[in-house]
């Protein structure tokens, strides 16, 4: 584990985009540089976090008491444990530094645990979930802001494993990048993510729907996150002709495992 406050950290950069103060000068500088080449990155982070807020509130209202959160990042204020203070929560991240901060910021209690694992190793995460939830498998899953950093085959495997593991009545809240996959692949944004060794994998609407075919979508279905959050889609790049339509758009949905 390399805790170096002079090097930028993904979790702290994300926190900066969300308006948080759990970040250092080096994180803010890097975040601003990233924003210059990827203007939609901050708005995308906000849309995801707002969606998570709303989705988790709905899961809390549906009286779930076990939450599995995939690719947590820094669980700063307004995160699941704030919205569901009595719930059992398993946070997950691939980055040991982020996990260490998370543990320090939130505190690891009997209710809140962290598991450091790659999402692709979903079996390890589910084993940790079984241990933490005491075998309870009717749970709420939050998988937000992460699906499009996983290649399509792995994502399909993760969703299949979640479906096979969780009990009927479980719900999943998830965000996606959906649209013109080929157009995106040729875009500058895609190239930048590839350069950062963190390629982005968008899906066509048909592919996303096919992956969700076995789940029952709850209202309002699979819709754009700006619509979900009731804001104009400011995350598109302004141009002379108005807002530039980008090949991919952020979508969100909540579904039930039948």
């Amino acid at each position: 584990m390399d805790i170096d406050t002079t090097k930028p950290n993904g979790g702290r950069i994300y926190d900066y985009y969300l308006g948080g103060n759990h970040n250092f000068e080096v994180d803010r500088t890097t975040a601003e540089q990233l924003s210059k080449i990827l203007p939609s990155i901050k708005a995308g982070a906000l849309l995801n976090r707002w969606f998570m807020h709303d989705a988790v509130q709905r899961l809390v209202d549906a009286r779930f008491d076990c939450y599995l959160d995939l690719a947590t990042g820094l669980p700063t204020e307004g995160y699941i444990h704030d919205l569901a203070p009595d719930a059992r929560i398993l946070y997950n991240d691939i980055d040991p530094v982020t996990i260490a901060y998370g543990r320090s910021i939130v505190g690891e209690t009997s209710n809140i645990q962290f598991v450091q694992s790659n999402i692709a190793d979903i079996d390890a995460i589910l084993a940790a979930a079984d241990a933490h939830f005491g075998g309870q498998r009717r749970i709420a899953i939050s998988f937000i802001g992460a699906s499009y950093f996983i290649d399509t085959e792995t994502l399909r495997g993760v969703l299949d494993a979640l479906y096979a593991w969780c009990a009927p009545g479980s719900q999943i809240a998830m965000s996606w990048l959906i649209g013109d996959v080929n157009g995106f692949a040729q875009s500058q944004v895609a190239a930048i993510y590839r350069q950062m060794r963190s390629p982005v994998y968008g899906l066509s609407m048909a592919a996303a729907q096919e992956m969700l075919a076995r789940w029952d979508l709850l209202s309002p279905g699979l819709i754009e996150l700006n619509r979900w959050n009731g804001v104009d889609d400011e995350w598109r790049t302004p141009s002379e002709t108005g807002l530039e339509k980008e090949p991919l758009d952020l979508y969100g949905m909540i579904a039930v495992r039948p």
Partner: protein
Amino acid sequence: MTDRNDLERVAGAALRRRAFTNRGMLPPTHLADMGRELVGLLLDPQENLDHPAARMVARGLSFVSAQEAGLAVQQAALDAADLPMLAQVSGRMATLIAAWHKAELDGLRREQEDLREAVVRALAEQREESDRQRLAAERSQQEQDRLAALVTELSAPVIPLYDGILVLPLIGSIDTRRAQDVMENVLESISRHQADSLIIDITGVAMVDTGVVQHLLQTARAVGLLGATVVLVGINPEIAQTITQLGLVITEIITLGTLQEGIVYALRRRGLSVQAITAASAAAARQGTARLSLWR
């Protein structure tokens, strides 16, 4: 008179326009409520704006969006030519801005402090972990050292054969490091046992090269300084050939064919000999054996 509901709607719309300046913890769906609260702060009697401002900052409302909403309310008052309200809202806005800045600074300070503490804790955990690993590594190194010492000792055991006589049977291949270990072990044993003869048996040594012979010679010289003599036994024909081919002349060491000859030689130096026991004492010994067997 301006309608309160209209003002709240105006404030909410302004907040929504600036939604992306708010923090991740404040979803736009909460902004209508925020607008109502903000209008309350601007219009209703307030003792102090510090606490309400701090609460709104903590809930993720940005200064930019709060200011936009305040300006929108002022504009609405102006449009309605409601001058008393305009005056009140303008005054409140000035106070609110000051309170806002203070709350944001406090929040920033608090969260940065949290982060610093988190880093310190995480670093402490990391240090503990690396300390644990280092201790484990040290323990395993100590264990390895102990085993290595045991192997060395076992590979060059110095056996006290009789008063003043030691035997060093060498087995396997001998490299420089092992030869060094052997020498130290030998010298220590000679002084401990006050030995005058050291028999080195190289029957089990597979190969001899110049280095090994040099070491044997060196050992012999060192043993000589301690007042003892080295007897080299077990030189097989191949080794004898090697020694001559290498052009080495061994004059400082007494060389004998077998371990038995070496023992006889060493005993003789002490004025002792090996001989058959007499018939009478042999019978006594046999009787002793017989007596012992009766006890069974």
